[in-house]
């Protein structure tokens, strides 16, 4: 794996640009009157942004992308067969 400094040098400008894009989009939303109270999507965005700010847990593999994906995902229902009425073969 490349050295941390090399990764930061390679990625920094793009990361900076993406954070700016997100900040500008949230400003745009506020200028339009703020997010509708009944719409859960902005809450999901805030949860995702919280994940970005967390530091890597000791000994754990970095998994921010996976955790952000799960924030924007419907939950898996292990009883889906019963819920949908689909029999096992």
């Amino acid at each position, binding site marked *: *794996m*490349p050295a941390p400094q090399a990764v930061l040098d390679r990625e920094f400008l793009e990361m900076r640009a993406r954070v700016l894009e997100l900040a500008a989009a949230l400003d745009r939303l506020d200028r339009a009157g703020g997010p509708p109270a009944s719409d859960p999507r902005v809450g999901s965005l805030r949860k995702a942004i919280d994940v970005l700010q967390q530091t890597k847990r000791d000994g754990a*593999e970095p*998994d921010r*992308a*996976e955790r952000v*994906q*799960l924030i*924007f*995902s*419907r*939950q*898996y*229902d*292990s009883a*889906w*067969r019963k819920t*949908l*009425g*689909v029999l*096992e*073969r």
Partner: protein
Amino acid sequence: MYYIDPHIHMVSRVTDDYEMLAKMGCVAVSEPAFWAGFDRGTVDGFRDYFRQLTEFEPKRAGWYRLQHYTWLCINAKEAENISLSREVIRMIPEFLDRPGVLGIGEIGLNKNTRNESIIFLEHLDLAAKTNEQILIHTPHLEDKHQGTRMILDMLCDDARLDHSRVLVDHVEEHTIRPVLDAGFWAGMTLYPVSKCNPQRAVDMVEMYGPERLLVNSAGDWGPSKPTAVPDFILAMRLRGHPESLIRRIVYENPLEFFSQSRGFQFTPPEVSETLSAE
């Protein structure tokens, strides 16, 4: 570097795209049957589509020395029409022994509904009875996690299926691990907007290694980039990964997976060069 795009919808692309793929080093494409952007009304509509996939597309690909392979099914979006789906599934065996047919696909789920699940199971049954390989579409965005888990449940419940002959496509960070852990092949689909991109695909290679991992462009009628695999190759190089690792993912892995299909009669490009010289 020679490469194979294991999931690209060439019926949606112009002939110039075949030429561009050839110039970029693509030597073969595999094209799963999919949604045309509208629901087809009759089984004969699908029969004509399967003729296009097995007759005209291989010919068009051949104009640029590309080898064309295909997969047949009725896709999840049209699976809400159960009676039409069953007619199509009964008709598919007419085409299974045609040259270049690799198996059943891309079957899967879209909105994770009851009818989609029923038709998915009936496709699995057809594949098991005819000993075909399977290529699977997983849902997008908020439905991907739940849909992928449902698909894995159904696959793992069927003891007749050999996991090493099943490719689960469109994996992302939250779905790749269970797919690989269960012994299936995993495909990363590179898209300009809604799916994975080359950088994140390289991340997943670094996290999970190259075994049973494929990368594709999907290249369909929506916003997509048929040369996304070369973008991935470049992203791998820029991060310093060796050519042998890149070649394994974009060339050797597709060969290993497809070689399990009786319809895969591949001529390596090195052999083509020999034939040209003679």
